[in-house]
């Protein structure tokens, strides 16, 4: 399996290298869908220039990257393009290895459940075989590396790629079962962009499952393990934040990075829902709605944990998708991360209801984003409502895509336990509804 992966990596690197040298690189770097105030490359360069001038990069409102990025690019600024290509390759390789391991776990679990007779007798077509699962890791790596969103994100040198790499390593560490590394990478991911805090729950559930600890609130071993994992996570986070303090000898980065993410003062348009909402908000309600929108990101974690406690990796996928849709400054790089997981659930294809229309919506919206931006900002013949409308449609498309996969997943689980051919009491074919 290594050879096809290497081939895919080579193709991806070639595509990126060609684009770096073309005139499209400047155009892509300027696009607001790809570069947001949090992760634009122009702002990283500006922050380093301010540091050279002797002014703290956090004294203004331009630079919102963590001190880790300053550390990293202070030495590597000459090789920035290489750094971003390497991060993309690392993400793809980490996802490949993670999904390979995950497939083994899925297959083992399926075998166990079949032997325990938990499945209904007529579900042979739903059982997954190693043959069909063989190419899934390669497809995941392919989906990530050759996704136009990822390519554009890399060519624009958006630091979202670095965030994706950290999350990919976190997923790899979790699936391999190493609690320590998982906690460290999760702390790093939270430190970079705050929202991966919600991935604590799926990681914990997966590690508990792997250790065969039952998830019961009264169980002592459950609480013991949870406390251990939480302590590892919090200690790593504290250590990383203290190391950041020593870079510039000030705590200025906390309001500049986390205060900025949470209070959303910069209303630069992006593909998310926040910017226009707060541009048109009455001043009186501004704080209330900021709180509501931020709570909305963290709010789905507990219900999803209760519903999906047997399937933590799917939980992780849904959680990453929710973060990408509802975070304060989303970019297409975040979207590319959860889209890389779609081949893992390719066996759900027969239960997806709206996949055709949703993919059309997403493709058309992606194409319309630059058109309507040009009409608003450059041609002056449209106004901000046009771009906002496409933002709304794109987000609805993403939301319905994720909920469609969720529906298909739950439906397959129902069929596995209750049988594929359902009959009503009078023997006729039955319909399945959510009630």
């Amino acid at each position, binding site marked *: 399996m290594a050879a096809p992966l290497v081939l895919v990596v080579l193709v991806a690197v070639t595509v990126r290298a060609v684009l770096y040298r073309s005139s499209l690189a400047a155009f892509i770097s300027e696009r607001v869908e790809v570069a947001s105030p949090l992760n634009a490359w122009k702002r990283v360069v500006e922050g380093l220039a301010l540091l050279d001038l002797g002014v703290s990069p956090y004294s*203004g409102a331009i630079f919102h990257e963590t001190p880790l990025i300053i550390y990293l690019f202070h030495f590597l600024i000459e090789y920035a393009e290489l750094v971003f290509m390497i991060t993309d390759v690392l993400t793809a390789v980490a996802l490949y290895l993670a999904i390979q391991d995950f497939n083994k776990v899925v297959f083992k679990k399926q075998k166990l459940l079949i032997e325990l007779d938990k499945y209904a007798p007529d579900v042979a077509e739903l059982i997954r075989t190693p043959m069909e699962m063989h190419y899934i890791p390669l497809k995941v790596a392919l989906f990530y590396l050759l996704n136009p969103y990822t390519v554009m994100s890399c060519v624009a040198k958006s630091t979202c790629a670095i965030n994706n790499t950290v999350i990919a390593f976190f997923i790899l560490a979790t699936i391999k079962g190493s609690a320590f590394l998982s906690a460290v990478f999760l702390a790093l991911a939270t430190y970079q962009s705050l929202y991966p805090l919600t991935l604590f729950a799926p990681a914990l559930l997966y590690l508990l499952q792997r250790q065969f600890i039952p998830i019961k609130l009264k169980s002592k071993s459950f609480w013991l393990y949870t406390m251990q994992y939480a302590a590892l996570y919090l200690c790593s986070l504290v250590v990383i934040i203290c190391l950041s303090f020593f870079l510039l000898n000030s705590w200025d980065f906390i309001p500049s990075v986390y205060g900025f993410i949470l209070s959303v003062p910069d*209303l*630069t348009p992006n593909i998310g829902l926040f910017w*226009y909402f707060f541009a*048109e908000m009455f001043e009186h309600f501004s704080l209330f709605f900021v709180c509501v929108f931020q709570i909305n990101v963290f709010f789905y974690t507990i219900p*999803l944990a209760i519903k999906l406690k047997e399937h933590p990796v799917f939980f992780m996928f849904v959680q990453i998708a929710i973060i990408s849709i509802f975070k304060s400054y989303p970019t297409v790089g975040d979207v590319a991360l959860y889209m890389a997981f779609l081949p893992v659930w390719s066996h759900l294809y027969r239960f997806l209801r709206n996949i055709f229309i949703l993919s059309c919506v997403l493709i058309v919206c992606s194409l319309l984003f630059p058109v309507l931006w040009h009409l608003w900002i450059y041609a002056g013949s449209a106004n*901000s*409502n046009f771009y906002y409308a496409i933002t709304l449609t794109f987000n609805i498309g993403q939301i319905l895509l994720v909920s469609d996969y969720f529906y298909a997943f739950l439906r397959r689980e129902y069929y596995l336990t209750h049988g594929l051919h359902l009959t*009503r009491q009078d023997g006729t074919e039955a319909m399945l509804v959510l*009630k």
Partner: protein
Amino acid sequence: MLAALLLPLLLAAGPGRAGAGRERRDALREELLLSPLPAGDVAATFQFRTRWDADLQRGAVSHYRLFPKALGRLVAALGVRELHLALTQGFWRTQAWGQPPLQAPAGAELWVWFQPTVTDVDKAWKELSNILSGIFCASLNFIDSTNTVTPTASFKPLGLANGTDHHLLRYAVLPREVVCTENLTPWKKLLPCGSKAGLAVLLKAERLFHSSYHSQAVHIRPVCRDASCLAVSWELRQTLTVVFDTFSSGQGKKDWSLFKMFSRTLTDACPLASQSKVYVDISPKNKEKELLEVTPPPVSVHEAIVQGDKRTYAVYDLLSPSLFNTSRSLNVQLKWKRPQDSSELPTPVLHAQRYVSGYGLQTGEISTLIYNTHPYRAFPVILLETVPWYLRLYVHTLTIVTKGKENKPSYIHYQPAQDRRRPHLLEMLIQLPANSVTKITIQFERALLKWTEYTPDPNHGFYVSSSVLSALVPSVIAMKDMDVEQSPLFTSLFPSSDGSSYFVRLYTEPLLVNLPTPDFSMPYNVICLTCTVVAVCYGSFYNLLTRTFHVEEPSRGGLAKRLANIIRKFRGVPPL
């Protein structure tokens, strides 16, 4: 008995004389300078200087005579060391009109040095701008932290100063401020004679605002009382510069007179003034022939070196009794003897231009061009730029190019902006080589503001205040050290340390920049639509999380279905 009558007189005179020793002496000098400009326009600069030998900071001063009480109380109460306020309408075209005597940026400019005893400078600044807003009927109360900066090098104190901790300095410009009669009236009221006698009778609003450039300013500063500088006096200068141009005020003809410019003539001097003079610039432009003919013929001619150039002035002393002998009013008339030659247009040694380039509403670039036309001398210039926070400057894109090569500034002070709290401040010391053009460019990004932060006419654009260039320009002719008291007022505002250069402060054009606007009619719609999208997600997830799959049981149907079946049975159609 005579002695008895004389004694009270002597007694009365005695304490009077002793009282005169205790009384603070104040003096008013007023002066009008008329300078013809190359294109046939004429500039008139009024200066009224009240000097008061009292220390406003110490000792409760309660008896105000010539010095206006409003300003005196302000200086004493808020611990002001120096105050400079200018309200300007129009722009001084340095390239066409030459170096200005005293320039001010378009709009309202206020810069103040506070005493070191002031503990909370920001609070004093806010109070000061509000009080001045009331005194001058100008919207100076809009000065807040988003348009105030603390320059470190450009604005040194012009009066006596003990130390220069620049944390005591505040500078703000309101580029959008308009100047009108409402601002002129309180300014005139501060003059000792008001607008009833002396040179101030010429200040009539209907003529003054019908001009290309109108600038009125107030400068308060402490000065040395005498050459030994053991005591401090306070000086209040009120200056008003107005440029009348040939076509709008002059009806196309280039002959000017006081009556034509101000629709008034001078009848007497202000009785409270110790000096009242009118100067007319009659410097010959190419050293052979005189350009200008002035009537009535001047009593005396004064030569001075002003801004590095030797100039000749015709002087009319309004206090001399011989002036009003022939006629009761003085109407100075200027006639050009020969037509203006375009080759005689003087190029000022230092001038600058600024403009915005770029297209679209996302990014742009501010370019400043600084010209040094001196043939062989290079000199440094300090450039101060204040850019509002919503134009996000990228200092890594700052490039300074002179004659095709990069020119690195020897001093840069950059303070980045904070959203909604303070503007960008960029101060640089740039060396200008002789006979060169320096181009300074910096790129910016335009921010989208909240809908309430736009002005009622958002598509007009947002103003960026003028940038300030301060330089010691080398002069062609060496200037002698002059006695500040004896020299005319128009040469003595800026202190000069040596005779080989003179201080110039220039302002560039203000800029007008468009920002992308949201749709202002949409707040409810946007809130509803965005909340709908969030609700779609919430609804789908709620359904999937709280409901489970069930096999659908056929229901007997609701009431509507049963009614429909009954009707169908009557019609003979199979039931639902």
